[in-house]
């Protein structure tokens, strides 16, 4: 049985820009270090680069265009700071053009460095990056004295888009074998953009009216779908949930998975019947590179926002609905929000966090006749949920490929007046927000406490926080 893991390194555009600028900023070799947490599922590990640090040129014992040495004494502060890290990043530059590749010196020193790392950070991996002057990188993960395993892709997440770097030693060459079904999609997106989205695993929380259509629209352009929903099909789902008929029964995710696999047999689809957040759903979603959340409760939206912020995942959140006064529609529409590094989190982008009770409590209240907002319509029409899903997937494509300009961070559709507004400039990151108000630092600050609007936030379970720091080899969990 192969024990090879599939590694992806994710970093914010700010952090990666600092790293790239430092390494490219000298004709002599330079070093850079960084601290990573990690999330893993089913042999896939996503390393999250939190912070980078650079020795000054004056600190090196030796530095010229072909060699750089940091003395043992000067390595200790970096090692001490790596306490609790799942991985320690060691990057250095080859300040000349050409395919970067580790030298014997690099390999011998890295093996000793990995052994040293086990003191302050038992079980931690050494993430190795070599950059050349022409921008190409070699990237590997060292988990012992043996040769490192390649990093498949580096995902650099900015406010307006995702940059995917395929290291020169990656086993994934960045291209896909396209099929006849891709012909018209390729005409719009191009080879590079479709290859980029096909390299992504997308998690989807909620596969009801909106979520099921999001899954359908994503199915032909992504590499993997991960579906999460606790509910079972009911006859009332049939008008909006495309894979459901009036006699359909069973779990929503099970039915969705079967229908999507029928249409796209080559697509990997995994699913979990469960509420988010929970240990099972969180573990399954640890395999995602991008997250959609289409639930019917703001507590789930808030939890997804924090989960995405903590795990450096881009997130698209969708909601739709309407209000009626005296049986006459007074409001009808939907919103699509994009949460990405460098932009506002959902609470800073207009999410109402004033009623973050558990969804089961809300449901129990409804069953006992306690209706908090009598004007809210308990349902939607398929044209509305379908349009909401279409806009959400369009935002995804704009963010991942840039095929038609910069993605909006907040779309609001007023369906009664047939208007869609770009509300991106109406919201901004609030100073001090624990999720988006500060640069990603090491060690990570637990996302608990008070949000900027003064409402109490929900805790990420402490078990979840601890799992971020566990050795990579112990992380796999199945749903």
């Amino acid at each position: 049985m192969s024990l090879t893991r599939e590694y992806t390194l994710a970093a914010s555009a700010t952090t990666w820009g600092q790293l790239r600028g430092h390494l490219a900023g000298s004709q002599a070799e330079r070093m850079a270090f960084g601290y990573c947490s990690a999330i893993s599922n089913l042999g896939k590990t996503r390393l999250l680069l939190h912070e980078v640090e650079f020795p000054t040129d004056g600190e090196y014992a030796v530095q010229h265009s072909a060699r750089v040495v940091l003395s043992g004494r000067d390595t200790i502060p970096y090692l001490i700071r790596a306490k609790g890290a799942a991985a320690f990043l060691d990057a250095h530059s080859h300040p000349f053009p050409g395919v970067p590749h580790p030298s014997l010196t690099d390999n011998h020193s890295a093996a000793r460095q990995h052994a040293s790392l086990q003191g302050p950070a038992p079980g931690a991996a050494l993430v190795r990056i070599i950059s050349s002057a022409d921008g190409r990188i070699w990237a590997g993960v060292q988990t012992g004295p043996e040769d490192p395993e390649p990093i498949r892709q580096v995902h650099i997440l900015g406010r307006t888009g995702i940059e995917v770097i395929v290291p020169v030693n990656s086993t994934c060459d960045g291209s896909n074998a396209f099929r006849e079904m891709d012909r018209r999609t390729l005409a719009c997106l191009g080879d590079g953009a479709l290859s980029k989205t096909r390299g992504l695993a997308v998690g989807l929380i909620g596969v009801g009216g909106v979520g099921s259509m999001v899954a359908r629209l994503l199915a032909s352009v992504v590499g993997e779908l991960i579906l999460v929903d606790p509910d079972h099909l009911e006859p009332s789902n049939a008008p909006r949930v495309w894979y459901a008929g009036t006699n359909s029964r069973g779990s929503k995710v099970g039915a969705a998975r079967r229908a999507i696999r029928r249409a796209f047999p080559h697509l990997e689809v995994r699913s979990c019947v469960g509420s988010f957040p929970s240990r099972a759903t969180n573990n399954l979603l640890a395999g995602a590179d991008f997250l959609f959340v289409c639930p019917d409760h703001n507590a789930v939206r808030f939890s997804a926002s924090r989960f995405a912020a903590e795990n450096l995942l881009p997130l698209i959140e969708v909601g739709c609905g309407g209000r009626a006064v005296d049986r006459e529609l007074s409001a009808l529409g939907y919103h699509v929000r994009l949460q990405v590094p460098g932009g506002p989190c959902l609470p800073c982008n207009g999410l109402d966090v004033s009623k973050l009770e558990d969804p089961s409590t809300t449901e129990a209240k409804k069953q006992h006749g306690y209706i908090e907002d009598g004007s809210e319509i308990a349902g939607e029409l398929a044209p509305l949920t379908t349009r909401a899903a279409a806009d959400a997937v369009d935002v995804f494509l704009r963010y991942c490929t840039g095929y038609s300009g910069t993605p909006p961070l907040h779309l609001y559709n007023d369906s009664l007046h047939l208007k869609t507004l770009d509300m991106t400039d109406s919201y901004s990151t609030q100073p001090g927000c624990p999720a988006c108000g500060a640069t990603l630092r090491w060690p990570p600050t637990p996302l608990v406490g008070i949000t900027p609007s003064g409402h109490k936030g929900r805790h990420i379970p402490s078990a979840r926080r601890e799992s971020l720091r566990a050795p990579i080899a112990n992380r796999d969990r199945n749903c």
Partner: protein
Amino acid sequence: MGLSKLNNKVIVTPKDQMTVAEFKRLGDVGELERIYDLHTGQVLEDNQLIDTREAAYGSTTDWERGSSR
């Protein structure tokens, strides 16, 4: 007899105190490696006496990178 950790490996020592140089030999650590206190980050010199009862130390050496070989 002492029981301490070096780079997270348990080292059994014949004495409760010994010099860093002796500890290096027991821990199969190269002479050029630096031993430091894992809690404080303090570098320990070869002739320095250290406590080996349930103490935790780290070792490190020069980090060298080169594109020439």
